[in-house]
């Protein structure tokens, strides 16, 4: 279909307006992170006193880098654990036969309906009794596996042709070997998706770490920003914006790099 010239111009106009709305908060956040707080407080957003001083202050005066490190450790551990335990669980539901398998699967499926937010009261009591409070473990252990991950990988493992399993049986591969050598490589795209999903999910945790961590040593970045925003640095807008920008840059980079990967993965799937 040919687009007329006015039509095209109109389209670009809407595209640009929407782009400005989406990108506006980023730009404003980044721009104010370069300004002295005194200028921001006066409302002079067109200040020319541009510098990276807020970044230097944020890194030197706050625990922002520590928060980032904490979040990174927690998210990587959670991601690795979920890749392992969800894939093992999914394997059991596809390739093993045992009593009550279908029943168990529906039970796990049912847990996907239960929001973690509605269970924080007993969970808090549990981790307190286990002496896990204020440690990396408290933010990893409850999320070592996920019903969603098991469900997703089960769907993916079911695509493996039965002939492969038969051939493996003939070759004498046991379940560990079949799991490691055939199942995981075969389902690598689903594993990559689960990795990205579990990492982001962990990175974005807010309520649970807020309840269970009390020191900068273990506090992840979401609650770290909350801490900065609510503490003595309140109203030091320049430094808070600089901290927010420091936090958003790694995930933006991951997103843009990952997007190409995702696109290739999708194309690969589409042209098969």
């Amino acid at each position: 279909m040919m687009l007329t010239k006015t039509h095209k111009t109109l389209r670009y106009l809407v595209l640009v307006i929407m782009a400005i709305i989406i990108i506006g908060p980023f730009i404003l956040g980044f721009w104010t992170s370069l300004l002295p707080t005194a200028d921001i407080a006066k409302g002079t957003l067109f200040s020319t006193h541009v510098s990276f001083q807020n970044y230097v202050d944020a890194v030197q005066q706050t625990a922002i880098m520590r928060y980032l490190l904490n979040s990174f450790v927690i998210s990587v551990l959670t991601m690795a654990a979920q890749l392992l335990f969800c894939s093992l669980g999914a394997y059991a539901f596809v390739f093993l036969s045992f009593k009550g398998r279908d029943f168990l699967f529906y039970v796990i499926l049912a847990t996907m309906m239960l929001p973690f937010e509605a269970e924080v009261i007993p969970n808090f009591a549990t981790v307190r009794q286990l002496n896990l409070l204020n440690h990396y473990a408290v933010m990893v252990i409850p999320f070592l596996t996920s019903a969603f991950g098991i469900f997703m990988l089960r769907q993916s493992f079911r695509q493996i042709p039965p002939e492969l399993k038969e051939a493996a049986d003939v070759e004498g591969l046991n379940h560990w070997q079949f799991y490691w050598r055939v199942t995981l490589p075969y389902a690598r795209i689903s594993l990559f998706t689960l990795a990205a999903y579990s990492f982001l999910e962990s990175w974005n945790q807010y309520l649970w770490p807020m309840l269970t961590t009390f020191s900068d040593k273990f506090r992840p970045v979401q609650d770290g920003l909350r801490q900065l925003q609510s503490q003595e640095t309140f109203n030091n807008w320049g430094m808070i914006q600089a901290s927010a920008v420091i936090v958003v840059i790694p995930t933006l980079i991951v997103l843009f790099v990952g997007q190409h990967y995702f696109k290739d993965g999708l194309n690969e799937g589409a042209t098969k």
Partner: protein
Amino acid sequence: MQAEVTPAPKPKVDQSSAISHKRAKGYNLHAGDKYYAFAFLGPSLLVLGTFVFYPMLRTLYLSLFLTNNVGRPTVFVGLKNYIGLLTSSAYQASLQATAVYVIGVVALTLILGLLLAQLAVKKLAGIQWFRTIFSATMGVSVSVAAIFWLFIFSPSIGLFDQIGNFLHLPIVAWLTQPGPAMFAVIISTVWMNLGFTFLILFGALQMVPQPLYEASAIEGASESYQFFHVTIPMISPTLFFTSTVTLIGAFKSFGLIDLMTAGGPNNATNLMVYRVYQDAFLSGNYGIASAESVILAVIIALFTLLQFKFLEKRVTY
């Protein structure tokens, strides 16, 4: 090597379990997998049991009691916590605020997400840039979104007040007045959601077969006619999926509320999860907070069930 001996090629029929054989599309399943099942599934069952199942039952149990200040049940009160909640005007207000928030977030996220996807799907010079920008908020975590928007809505120095000032409009105290505060948290949430929603809907739009558009264009269909009679029906499964995901996410909102309004002003943005947090961890009313948790869980479970029922139809076994 493991102790288990792999059986020699056996007859195709697996006698051990006819049902699971049928369900598993012809994989040979062996009796004696018990040890493997235990090793493979054990860790997941332990974690889910401890942190998902037990707490649900425990929450249900606690919701029937009055509790002391460390959360131990003291007096059995039956359904009184629920009755008390559902008849209290404060809780009704919280439910109402949640409804307004959820409906606002879902409607705006879907409409804007669809608009962005529709704009980005047409091939134009430089469209790749716009696609990247439209998906950018997917990389924004809840605290960053809250801080960016907190500044935009902040009194007098914020962008909205500065624009208002420039245009000589009356100054709005965005975060300290009930209506505007609700508006502010909805807008911030929608912005944060848009990247994900855009990517999913954009993916769906790309999958709509081009011949459908070409055929309808030959018959003289306008672009808006095509949108409502070709595009929308073709992507309706994805639209449904995105709306339930957004809806469930909105019911669970906490971080943005905590950072931007802390449930205020005057409880205008005191949504369900935030109330659970306040009643349990600030006031120590664990019994009541448990009842609130159960109500929240029931609502979310119903919507998740709806989503499952729908996905079930689409997933091919």
